[in-house]
């Protein structure tokens, strides 16, 4: 036996013994260029929502018990009683309204005047035979005229603004911000700094979409290598006396200092000519890691009946996933040149493994159970994301998008995501007494609809939501590109 042969045999045997006797192999941290923990050069808000209780398919979107023929039927009005909840009134101002809006927060964490170039993307789908009607894959059969299909949309609107030293701003997506706080009065610095620019209102209501902001040079408006921005989005729902709020951090992509090349409208995230990402010396050869290779999320399975409060409160939960591609072409108005396949690996609490897959073009907002069943509630109980199928309440899913052919190093087709949970917040019980609009508490069973109640009906049917950032694992050889129009 040669010495070399001996080496490999001994090495393999020793490694096998080491792994077998060790408690666990060390987990390789393969850093990604994406974070929600730190300020970055690119911030992405993947989920923005505006709904002012529009009339859709003959019913108001947020108060579906109210029939309508137009949007005005869904706005608060006193007709002896309030039109939306039937409460007593003497004028329109006595009547409660209903709305969902997102408040965006954006902050310059640096001591310098900075500028961002931001892109709103309207991802509403519209009926093929009624272009002004907004639809989804689940409801297009009822909201579109007969024979119409639901055509996905991806319409971008961009704007620029400056922020002074450590300045935070906030705005409503529905209203925008026509005038920034320091547009006309000076900031505290010397020389004083001013805000420039304004923020447009949502281009369409109801609005579903995303916002991406890229830090640019204040003078040339070309992308810079600074990491100064952080952000959050709060989605607030108010329907009569009901209130709901959730908040998440914007997803950031870090710029690499000194890496900006001579092609400023193409932002290379990871890949061979990386301008954005983090250095990864855990691979051979070392490279800059861009968007994450795998997303991991802990979630409740759809329909999980979660009991809390020492056994006194129970209610169900469903989850939605918002998926966006890491690559965008704002110049040619295409989100994702190639449709991305996403592979899911799902583990339940028995350590049993399931898998499924879906496709992502521009933007996808989907209930977990709809990933492997038809859109809408039909079939959800047969999904592998259903608590009834899995048998446990929680699971962990790993999402891996499939990269394209490696021609120029920039077809990584990676994705980013946000998890939103909808928890039942109505109260079951025929004995619930209503006083001032609210049922008697404590209640032991929470509900979305009457179907969730073992006894009585669902009072104040509704949901409470949370949004949480998913986690990242690793990076990949290929990068992604965001292409922006230059000034």
């Amino acid at each position, binding site marked *: 036996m040669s010495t070399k042969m001996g080496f490999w045999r001994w090495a393999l045997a020793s490694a096998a013994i080491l792994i077998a006797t060790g408690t666990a192999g060390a987990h390789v941290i393969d850093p990604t260029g994406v974070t929600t923990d730190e300020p970055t050069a690119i911030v992405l808000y993947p989920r923005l929502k505006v709904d002012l209780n529009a009339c859709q398919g003959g019913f108001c979107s947020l108060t579906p018990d109210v029939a309508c023929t137009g949007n005005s039927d869904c706005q608060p009005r006193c007709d002896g009683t309030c039109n939306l909840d039937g409460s007593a009134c003497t004028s329109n101002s006595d009547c409660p309204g209903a709305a969902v809006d997102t408040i965006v927060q954006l902050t310059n964490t640096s001591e310098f005047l900075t500028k961002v170039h931001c892109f709103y993307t309207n991802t509403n789908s519209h009926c093929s035979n009624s272009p002004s009607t907004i639809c989804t894959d689940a409801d297009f059969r009822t909201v579109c005229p007969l024979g119409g299909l639901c055509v996905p949309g991806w319409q971008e609107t961009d704007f620029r603004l400056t922020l002074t030293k450590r300045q935070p701003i906030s705005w409503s997506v529905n*209203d925008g911000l026509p005038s920034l706080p320091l547009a006309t009065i000076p900031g505290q610095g010397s020389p004083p700094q001013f805000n420039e620019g304004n923020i447009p209102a949502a281009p369409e209501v109801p609005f579903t979409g995303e916002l991406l902001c890229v830090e640019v040079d204040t003078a040339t408006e070309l992308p810079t290598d600074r990491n100064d921005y952080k952000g959050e989005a709060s989605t607030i729902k108010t329907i009569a006396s009901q209130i709901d709020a959730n908040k998440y951090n914007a997803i950031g992509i870090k710029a690499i200092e000194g890496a900006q090349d001579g092609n400023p409208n193409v932002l290379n995230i990871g890949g061979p000519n990386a301008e954005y990402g983090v250095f990864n010396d855990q691979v051979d050869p070392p490279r800059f890691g861009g968007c994450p290779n795998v997303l991991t999320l802990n979630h409740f399975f759809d329909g999980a009946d979660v*009991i809390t409060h020492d056994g006194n409160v129970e209610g169900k939960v469903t989850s939605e996933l918002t998926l966006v591609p890491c690559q965008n072409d704002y110049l040619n108005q295409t989100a994702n040149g190639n449709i991305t396949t996403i592979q899911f690996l799902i583990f339940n609490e028995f350590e049993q493994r399931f898998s499924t897959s879906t496709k992502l073009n521009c933007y996808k907002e989907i209930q977990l159970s709809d990933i492997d069943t038809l859109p809408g509630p039909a079939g959800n109980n047969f999904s592998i994301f259903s608590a009834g199928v899995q048998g446990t309440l929680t699971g962990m899913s790993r999402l891996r998008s499939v990269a394209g052919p490696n021609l120029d190093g920039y077809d990584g087709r990676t994705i980013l995501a946000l998890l939103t949970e909808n928890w039942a917040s109505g109260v079951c019980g025929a004995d619930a007494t209503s006083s001032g609009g609210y049922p008697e508490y404590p209640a032991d069973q929470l509900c979305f609809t009457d179907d969730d109640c073992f006894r009585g009906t669902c009072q104040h049917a509704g949901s409470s939501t949370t949004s949480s950032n998913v986690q990242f694992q690793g990076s990949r050889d290929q990068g992604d590109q965001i292409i922006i129009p230059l000034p």
Partner: protein
Amino acid sequence: MSKALGMRCVWGLCGVLVCVLALASVTRAEVSTDVSGSVLVFPKVLWTGPMTLGEPSRDTVIEISNTSNNLVHAHCFYVNAQRVNGVPLWQITDFTIWLTRQQPTHWVASQGRSVNPSDSFGTDGAGLDPGAIPPVPFGFEGELKCVQIDASGTPFGGNNLKGEALIRSDDGDVSKANAIAILANPDLVPGDPSNILRLDNSVLNDGEYNSCPNTWMLDHFVDGATNPVIEEHNEAWCSDDECPIRTYLTLVPCTQDFENVSPATVTVQFAIVNELEQVFSASTTVDCYSTFRLADVDAPTGKCSGDGDTCLSDYDCIQSSDGFCEKASVFSLGNLGSSTAFTRITPVDVDGGVLAVAEEVHYNNNNPDDTQTTNRAWAAWNPQATGNRYDATLDSPNGPVVDVITIPQGF
């Protein structure tokens, strides 16, 4: 030993070294909510017990997953910081969990989780029970910390744990935040002695666990800011602008001594910038655990917006239908003059770091009576961070500051 055998041993050891290096990881110098780690910190865990008038009961659901393909063990510590006569208990209850490869698990703070193989399919306890997890007592308010260990109970730097905490009110409201993961440097964990976890890994130092952040960055609504969505679209439930937003911050010191049950104290400074770029400041001291409304930092009392009576919290006013407790704080709308602000939270030089989670509560003016509780919605999120304590205090007179987590020795 023959020469040939000696050569084999040498080559074999080299091979082992190569394999170990290939398996070992290099960690980023940070704590993170984006990746898995070796110490998981859930800074805010609540089980308030039954509701009181005008104050919904809140309970916490913990989710933890093993992100690796190996069996993972964790030693977890509940820290009960419930205040009795104004003094935090700082009582520790610990337990151990085991998670098989990629296994997720969950439990409810008020109920714990027993080991019961006969749990019915689809019920709360279904799945491979991770171990016996005790329930927390009524009134529990504190943190949960889980340290990855090996089968012998020695800390292990595998960086395989991720988690989330969801707080649910009995009216159905929910808020959720990621657990904070402290990453280990597997080359140096466990240290000596193994029960002392030094948080001294940084850009400038090869240490055991990543150092805590130097500065937390918090974007928040200012205290008392009127909820813009309710005000504009549902005015009937925001009459007299009585639909305020409050921000609550929870801070726990990075240094903890579970062996001697000795709580740490950290003084933190707040630098607040409003939308007009005006700068304000405040400070407070965190004694083992602190969760507070931002306005409480410098304004312990306020006045009810309804009748002007003195109040400590919104609860004092809500239960008597007298509006909300407005405070003359540096964090309040009256002082800052803009609806949002950016606050940086930094410990003083001689102190260790803190870990943070934020929660904001959105009120409407639904005056609760004895049958009502829901006039609010909570939303939690993870503040961002920059720098680390080790490097930031390197040049301090007694620096660098190294936070230490001491877990009980085995016996």
